[in-house]
């Protein structure tokens, strides 16, 4: 165990050295690979060899560079980006989907020190003379997509304790999760890491970006919300779940009264006076004497929740959970900060949700199917349509347990468009809406001056399933480049090999010619087309590489690699 830790530590040190060095080359495209190195042993080994070579070369260079560095630069704290972001970047020539505001057919985005400073049509935006220009013509630029809730970044998704508002996911985020790498690859540049639904009251959540070696580095915003579940936790029924919720807040009131009484007594003791009033009066007088630090761990976050310091993310797995959730939030005064997370059939309570007027987070499976218990007739509802028709703000989440496609946020949004929801609404549901729900709507979720430069460059329209993520910028730094995504490359190679093998096996089983001549010839025809298709696939990959070269950055990174 110890040795494993030590070797991991060594590996980390090596990698970190490499990262610091590669910062000089402005564009960090190796971060996802670091994640890969950490999480995948065999790949890590290979990478280590490569990085060792790299670090030797880089070390020599570093000695030279460090002496040239301005002192301020060298002394910058190791913030989220682990180094200085490239000062200025301009993405030019692409189609821009800013989400807030109309689309720009051919536009330019200027990023300075990690923030967007200008966005507009190419002929209107002035590019600073010292900005690095990246030509993204023919591509589509959109804000980084946002996963509105995920526990896949945690080591364990739930705590056993039913009421645990004193926990924080900070302690459980595992930066080496492959999930973060996948998120980056899919254009998801902000993730709301929050405890799962198997709780009564869960811990505090956190908004993170999918790069970084420690939770601190990854953090965009901390303590954004607290998970609460109306649907019973495992081993509970609804009576126990709701009684526990009511009890928690009733106990908080009782605690506050006791605390106030105690504070009043203490204040008298300081003045060396004896208690002069009845307990009720003492509680009243002591109320204002309570300071934030007086609350114990168990109650502090509940007080902050009531005060509106962060949102309540209330899970309602069934329609019958919605009204109790709304009632609880109203009674305890945090309805204005509540987000309702809907389960499969919770949309049936759309009337109640509409009355509450709070944003909702839809289940990953956007279709709800139900059989009539008497006739066996299958009824199908497209959930986002129900919510959209009620005029509620909603966010979409991926459905990794569903079909392959449902794991992509842009696919989920495209499904909404296909079912009649306006394109703009669907776009908002994967960008600005989740950002607003997490309380970071003024930082993330759109391409506007002043916002964090989290940008996704796609090969085509995000709702076209033939488009893919080409580049991702986080804080204005190139964080992902498909052309350099070795794992993806290997994966695709592997899949191509598997497909070939499968085909070969199929051919082998079909080796003997069939009795019927006509059918045989038809099969031959099919084979011919499938070969054509695979040839096309490989040429597409080639194109991707070509684009990477064309952007003019590959030279730098190539140097780093060596």
């Amino acid at each position, binding site marked *: 165990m110890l040795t494993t830790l030590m070797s991991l530590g060594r590996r980390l040190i090596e990698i970190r050295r490499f990262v610091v060095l590669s910062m000089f080359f402005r564009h960090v495209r190796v971060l996802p690979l670091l994640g890969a190195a950490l999480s995948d042993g065999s790949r890590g080994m290979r990478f280590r060899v490569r990085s060792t070579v790299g670090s030797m070369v880089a070390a020599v260079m570093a000695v030279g560079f460090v002496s040239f560095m301005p002192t301020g630069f060298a002394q910058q704290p190791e913030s989220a980006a682990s180094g200085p972001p490239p000062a200025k970047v301009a993405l030019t020539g692409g189609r821009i989907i800013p989400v807030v505001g109309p689309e720009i057919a051919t536009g330019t985005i200027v990023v300075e020190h990690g923030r967007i400073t200008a966005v507009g049509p190419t002929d209107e935006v002035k590019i600073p003379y010292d900005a690095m220009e990246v030509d993204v013509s023919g591509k589509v630029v959109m804000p980084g997509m946002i996963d509105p809730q995920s526990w896949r970044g945690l080591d364990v998704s739930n705590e056993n304790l039913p009421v645990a508002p004193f926990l924080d996911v900070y302690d459980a985020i595992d930066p080496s999760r492959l999930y973060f790498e996948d998120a980056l690859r899919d254009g998801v540049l902000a993730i709301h890491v929050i405890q799962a639904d198997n709780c009564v009251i869960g811990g505090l959540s956190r908004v993170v970006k999918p790069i970084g070696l420690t939770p601190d580095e990854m953090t965009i915003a901390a303590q954004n919300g607290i998970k609460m579940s109306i649907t019973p936790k495992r081993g509970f029924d609804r009576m126990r779940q709701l009684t526990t919720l009511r009890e928690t807040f009733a106990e908080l009131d009782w605690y506050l009264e006791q605390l106030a009484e105690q504070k009043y007594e203490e204040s008298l003791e300081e003045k060396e006076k004896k208690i002069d009033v009845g307990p009720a009066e003492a509680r009243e007088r002591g109320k204002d004497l309570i300071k934030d630090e007086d609350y114990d761990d168990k109650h502090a976050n509940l007080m902050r929740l009531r005060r509106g310091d962060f949102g309540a993310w209330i899970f309602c797995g069934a329609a019958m959970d919605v009204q109790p959730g709304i009632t609880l939030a109203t009674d305890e005064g945090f309805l204005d900060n509540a987000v309702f997370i809907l389960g499969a059939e919770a949309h049936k309570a759309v*009337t109640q949700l509409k009355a509450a007027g709070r944003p909702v987070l839809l289940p990953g499976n956007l279709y709800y199917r139900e059989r009539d218990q008497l006739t066996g007739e299958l009824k199908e509802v497209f959930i986002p349509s129900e919510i959209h028709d009620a005029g509620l703000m909603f966010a979409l989440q991926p459905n990794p347990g569903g079909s392959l496609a449902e794991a992509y946020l842009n696919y989920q949004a495209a499904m909404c468009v296909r079912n009649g929801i306006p394109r703009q609404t669907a776009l908002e549901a994967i960008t600005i809406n989740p950002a607003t729900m997490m309380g970071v709507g003024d930082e993330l979720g759109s391409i506007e001056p002043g916002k964090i430069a989290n940008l996704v460059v796609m090969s085509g329209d995000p709702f076209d399933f033939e488009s893919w993520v080409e580049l991702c910028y986080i804080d204005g730094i190139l964080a992902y480049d498909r052309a350099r995504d070795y794992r993806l490359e290997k994966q695709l190679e592997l899949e191509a090999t598997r497909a070939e093998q499968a085909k070969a096996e199929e051919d082998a089983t079909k080796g003997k010619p069939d009795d019927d001549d006509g059918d045989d010839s038809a099969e031959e025809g099919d084979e011919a087309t499938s070969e054509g298709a695979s040839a096309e696939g490989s040429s597409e990959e080639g194109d991707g590489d070509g684009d990477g070269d064309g952007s003019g950055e590959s030279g730098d990174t190539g140097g780093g690699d060596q």
Partner: protein
Amino acid sequence: MRDVEAAANSFVVCAGRVITSSWRGEWDIADGIIVVRDGRIEAVGSADDVDVPLGLPVYHYPDATVMPGMVAACSNVVGQRSGDESIGAGYSALDAFNVYGDYRGILAGGVTTVHIDPGWYRLVSGQGAVVKLGGEPGSRVLQSPSDMTFNLGPRAYLPPDIVEEVYPSSGAEPIEPGVPQRPDSRIGQYLALREALDSSVIGTGEFNVHLRDLSAWWQAGGTARVQVNDAADIAGAIQFFSSNLMGSPVSRSRSNSNGVKPYLVGCREIGDVLDLVSDANMGFVYTLPSPLGQPGGNLGNNPEARDADITVLSGLFEAADEGRVSLSTGSGASPSGLRLAAATALRAGLTERQIVNAITSVPARQLGLGGRVGTIAPGADADFVVLSGAPLSIETHVLKTFVNGVEAYSIDQDDEWGEALVVRAGTIWLGPNNWLHDGAVLIEDGKIVSVGQRVPTPPNARVIDAGPDAFVTPGLIDAYGHLGLAGDQSAIPPNLPLERLVGYPDVSAGRVARSGVTTVLTGPYRFDNNGSRIAAIKTWGGSREARVVNGTAAIAFDVRGGNPRSLANRIKQRLEAGKKYVEKWKKYEEELKEWEKKKAEGKLEGDAKPKTEEIVEETAKEDPITGRWSMRIFGGPMPNEEEGEIALKLTGSSIEGRVTEPYVPIEHKIIGTLDGTHITGTIEVDTGGMGTPTWEAELQGEDFMSGTAGIEGLATVNFEATRTSKEAVEFKVSKRKRRTTGKDGRPLPPKVDESLEPIRALLNKQIPALVAVSSADEIDALLKLISEYELGVVLLGAEGARDRTDLLKEKQVGVVLPTRVLRQDDWEWYHQGDDLSRRGIPVAFQSNAEDGARTLPEMALYAVSRGMSPESALAAFSVDAARMFKLDDRIGSIAPGREGDLVIFSGYPFEAQTVVERVIVGGKEIQP
């Protein structure tokens, strides 16, 4: 019903019986009317007392009983709570109730309102609620909390220890072992209750949500729901809860003004403590054992063990007044069985009224909702159940359940069931001198399934209880009428399928149907020389398929007036033609049989490939036919002369051609054969089954022909044509292959000749010939011919039958009586039906009219008045008529497998005051 906009939950119900369960006003109303407005009952009463408001839809349930939606004071709709606390006053059953739930399974049992409790397993299990199982989710909760639930008895003993979760646990704050809870025993439960009440009022210094809620309930003087079964616990509960003091010193000192209102639930052993019951000022909910549908458990050899004894109810109802005892299913059973379980209380000698109240208005009052649910009274919610019969009959089923004036359940929603109808009546006429008294008929999917003193009553069945006076006969048969012809008096050729006239029943069909005539042998007014088809059709039904019994039930000829022998010869000619046609089919059938045999034996290799014969056709260069012909058509039915052009081509001796002028969108090929100067041929065109048009012409000199064209038996036109060009017009490839066998060598059937099809059926003895005859001579000639071919025959009219009775009897030939039934013989008037039936010749009645058939049943009355036996008259309308036309396996009698056609008379059909009350065709009642 008026087509006026009305709120969906505003309507009027008319029902055969309405049970109101009301304390004031009538309890049981025959022919009742309920006015529902906006989901509430506005008025209820008998048809004479209540004015039906205009503009509301009216629903008729003439055979149904309507009773209030039942109220289950105990249910398993929400489960047990899972918390460990012995005193769990903070738990609320409502938390576990799904307002969006689909409770049609329970609504199907007629229960609309239920009490939900948090369980039977802790001393204080929590707060109960009263909810509806249907309606808008927002309106389903009637009362919450409705009461605090206490459980006394062994099930509440020995609760688990309570372990407090300490976080973070440490040396200073360790996780302590669990704290034990009360009660362990019967005596301990009262101690635990007193302790809980005292500490809830005084406080313990620790926060406890359950004690807080118990205290709030106590201060407010809430209702105590005490769930007990054992006699000792019942006695204890009555003592503990009946006094306001409850044995607690604190509660004694702080007795509240309202006082706690208790009611007991369960009460299995209440028979042992009845003396306490009469003095106790509280309600009782007796939970019924539910043995229906599942076998009981073993009691073993323990002499103390005993089954729940429902007869204690007689004592309980005596000890407590009626309004204090309600009945319910047990906490573990679904309330859907409430009505049946309650019906078993009849064994305890309770009345229908006591039992119905005990599952409707009494529990509603106990739960604090009296006047709102559980009763059909002005101001109450429109929650009611439509039952197929008496509320406590085992054979009764719930047809519909309404909640807040909206249909929440209907048996029709259940796709699994088809249509079913049960008709009960004092007398059912199964056949001559075969009467079934107090019988019933079950019709499923249009066919009679069961007949007898008792028949099964499927859950979906509509039940018509016609009463002890009612007399049910099979649907009446009109042996010769014209329903559907709509005044068309022409003779109809034998190739015309008559059933195409039949569609959705029109006004005249409805008139005939309502008179009791359910089947008409419909045929043309005049018969074609080549015979006409007679179709057996129902007078009612939703579609053509449902209405046509047999499209060709007979082929009809007319041999009246003229030389009887020559007329009979004409039939003979047709029969000979038919014979050849039958031969063709026989040959084909034999070939097919042979082929199938070979195929089964696997000897088909040689014949497996389809056989074809090649027809080679040469194109002639110059001939008397090829070219364009300008032609003139005239005569026949054509009002004006028409002109046109055709193009013909001669190949060998066969001619092929097209009409080129005027342009006809549907291509039709002219085909013919040249034989010298005579041309015969056909025109290939789809005439919708009317037959193939033929043409015939004679070449007269060069380039001129004249002849006729037309459809046999329908119309013929003359034409003349002159050749204008000798140029050949190419139409198509003239070489073709014709298949003589099917793909796998299967022999192909011969071409169907619609005009000979009825003759084929006749010769195959599938249908009879209906022959209009009059004189004895005609009967002689006809029967001679018929016996030659051994065919079935029915005589139509046969006025001279009296003189040939022996012959007719010998040949067992039936007679359709003439419309003028009274005949004179030697100045003696006699009724032909009476005369023939008495001599053993089967007879049937005809209307010889379209909707004139509606008065046909009157003719039976007249026949009986003229001496005909009533049984023969009924047989003439049913079984005899059906047998004549070989339809007796489908209609004409009441027996399993026959069509569900019934006529319900108000009494014996041959009494002057008797009327036709209801008519059922194919298992569906004809709406008045």
